[in-house]
């Protein structure tokens, strides 16, 4: 299904990110082209599994994140790790887009998360030693959005999407719809998720965490590595771009959301939801499959996802699959923030005309025979497609264009 009443282009005028591979967009870009992984041993999250599972952790304690964000703890004592990560990424996005206080006032803020303030909840829950119930206020998914709006003087509409690992893609879609319907002219949209014992143990209980560095799309892949981070895009209508003479880094030209309707946590063997998501996004962008120059795949490294996604890619693109890579091989899987990190990477790929490589790949999956890009490639990129899939059968695809 295609939304046809497009009143405006969806212009990307800014982006901000903090990820295991860097505290800002430039640092992330350098890590991506130098194949420097952010995955390693846990340092900050307190868990008995620290030595067991490599993870993509943002390399700072919460106090260090406060300093990077420039937040005074006395003034804002209740920032969880999610709010801190979001504050840092949003600040960078605002700077790129040159949004002043007046523009921020009329900007909508659309966030996404799967567990929000869970890192604080799990430490305080049933633990009288902490003696504080602050976590009850910071637990809701919507907490970070309220905090960010307060911090940066964003006084309009805000909301948070929570559709597990596809959350941030749906936040970007909701933001795009706000522009297309003329409800607002400017949106900051993306997502955040912190590492938590809750998700680490959750994915461990499902037996889909790799004890080695994850190997997306490899025949011998054995699960995912968890990650964390925050990423946000500034999306503006044509009118808003003109109004403050904003630089446009790229455009969102296609998006879709479909449901696999197969299983609560597993993807279908036919990749039906993913197939529909990619097909519908292509329809909306009025593109032929052959016009996609690069795919930033969901590519978690689990047996199930990569096979299902690979089959869906073959169904959409046939024998001539475009170059693709899973940047999760460098960042880990940041769950509700993953689509936001990868949206920022997709925009950077377009802007710099480079395909980012993935690491840890040796042999392709037999059924699909797909080879990811393992070296940085300079290429004339016009259209980049990014996939994000999640629990609950959620499949979302975004297409970014020059």
């Amino acid at each position, binding site marked *: 299904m295609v939304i*046809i009443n497009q009143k405006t282009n969806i212009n990307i005028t800014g982006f901000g990110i903090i990820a295991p591979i860097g505290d800002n967009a430039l640092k992330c870009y350098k890590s991506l082209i130098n194949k420097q992984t952010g995955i390693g041993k846990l340092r900050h999250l307190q868990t008995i599994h620290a030595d067991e599972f490599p993870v993509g952790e943002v390399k700072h304690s919460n106090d260090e994140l406060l300093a990077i964000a420039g937040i005074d703890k006395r003034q804002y004592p209740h920032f969880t790790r999610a709010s801190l990560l979001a504050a840092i990424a949003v600040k960078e996005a605002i700077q790129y887009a040159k949004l002043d206080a007046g523009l921020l006032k009329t900007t909508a803020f659309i966030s996404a998360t799967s567990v929000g303030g869970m890192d604080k909840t799990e430490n305080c829950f049933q633990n009288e030693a902490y003696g504080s119930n602050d976590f009850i206020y910071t637990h809701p*998914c*919507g907490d970070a959005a309220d905090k960010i709006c307060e911090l940066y003087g964003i*006084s309009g509409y805000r909301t948070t999407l929570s*559709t*597990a690992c596809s959350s941030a893609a749906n936040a970007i879609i909701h933001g795009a719809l706000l522009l297309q319907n003329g409800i607002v002219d400017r949106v900051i949209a993306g997502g955040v998720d912190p590492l938590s014992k*809750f998700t680490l143990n959750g994915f461990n209980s499902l037996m889909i965490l790799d004890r080695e560095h994850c190997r997306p799309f490899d025949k011998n892949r054995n699960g995912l590595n968890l990650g964390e981070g925050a990423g946000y895009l500034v999306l503006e209508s044509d009118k808003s771009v003109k109004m403050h003479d904003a630089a446009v880094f790229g455009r969102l030209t296609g998006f879709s959301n*479909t449901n696999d309707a197969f299983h*609560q946590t597993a993807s279908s063997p036919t990749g039906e939801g993913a197939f529909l998501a990619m097909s519908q996004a292509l329809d909306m962008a009025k593109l032929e499959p052959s016009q996609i120059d690069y795919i930033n795949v969901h590519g978690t490294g689990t047996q199930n996802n990569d096979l299902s996604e690979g089959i869906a890619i073959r169904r959409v693109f046939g024998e001539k699959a475009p170059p693709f890579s899973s940047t999760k091989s460098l960042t880990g899987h940041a769950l509700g923030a993953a689509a936001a990190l990868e949206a920022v990477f997709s925009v950077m790929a377009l802007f710099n005309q480079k395909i980012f490589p993935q690491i840890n790949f040796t042999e392709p999956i037999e059924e699909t025979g797909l080879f990811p890009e393992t070296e940085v490639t300079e290429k004339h990129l016009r259209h980049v497609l990014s996939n994000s899939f999640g629990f*609950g059968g959620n499949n979302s695809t975004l297409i970014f264009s020059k």
Partner: protein
Amino acid sequence: MKLFINKATAISPINSWGTENTLLNVPDASTGYFVCKEPDYKTIIDKKLLRRMSKFIKMSVANAIECLAGAGLEQPDAILTGTALGCVADTVDFLKQLNENNETLLNPTAFMQSTHNTASGQIALLLGCKNFNVTFSQKNTSFESALLQAEMMHPGNGYHNILVGGMDEITPESFQLLSQTDCFGKNVEKPYLPGEGAAFFVLSDQKSEKCLGKLEGLAFYPENISPAEIEDFLKKNNLTFNQIGLFLTGAHPHNEATMGISKFFSRENIVWFKEFCGEYDTSSAFALWLALQFLNQKIEGYERKTAEKILIHNQGSGLLHSLMLVSSC
């Protein structure tokens, strides 16, 4: 904005399920909070599936099935839900396991069912519905965000009938935790009791024969809402205060900040809807269902029985207030 509400269902602390007319009275709260009067789910949901479902999922799935059946639809063109706290029981279950088993030998079921989109995913799974499917979680405007998403999708081709739901559950543990805070408005005299509920709607671009009402306006306000803002909202819909037959508000009668608004409506035209469903962040979905009951003269035991235009105001744990305008078909 004009969305026809062709069907609405609710599971709530009052008798809202399976009866044509609603007897509006304050429900029993011997536990210190309002719990839903739940239907016999075995008559609605496959028994094999029921066993693993939490109250949150059961309430949502039952509502979705009944709502779609009532609207004569096999599948909606989109499934949009809003929940402030999501799957509380499953989340608490997994947190307890984490603590008690010291991060070992954990059962994955609670984790798998803990994501906020579990209910909308389960509805899709049950219906085999591959269409657009999202869940919003922005405190007391979670449900309203889902309504806004519906509004934005309707102008496009293909989106004719959208299933929208708002739901939150309360458990003994979450009640105990929330009671230790001022989440239930401890700073006001006689705060509302905590509550829970799930209400679902079929929103369509075409009016059906059974149309219950029209959603004509939806707006969000940061921090607070002033009488001038309400007046402006009404003006955009070519209305004035005295054309609003009923004002349903989630504010508290003793809360000074909202006293300003309520004095624009005569006492008998105000319904403090949280007296009937309790305090929870997606109670605005219950309020919308209640408004439709009023519009269609299906309320008993309450002095003011009907109205043609109803304004709903809600506030809660978040920083936004919301307004919804509903009118007769």
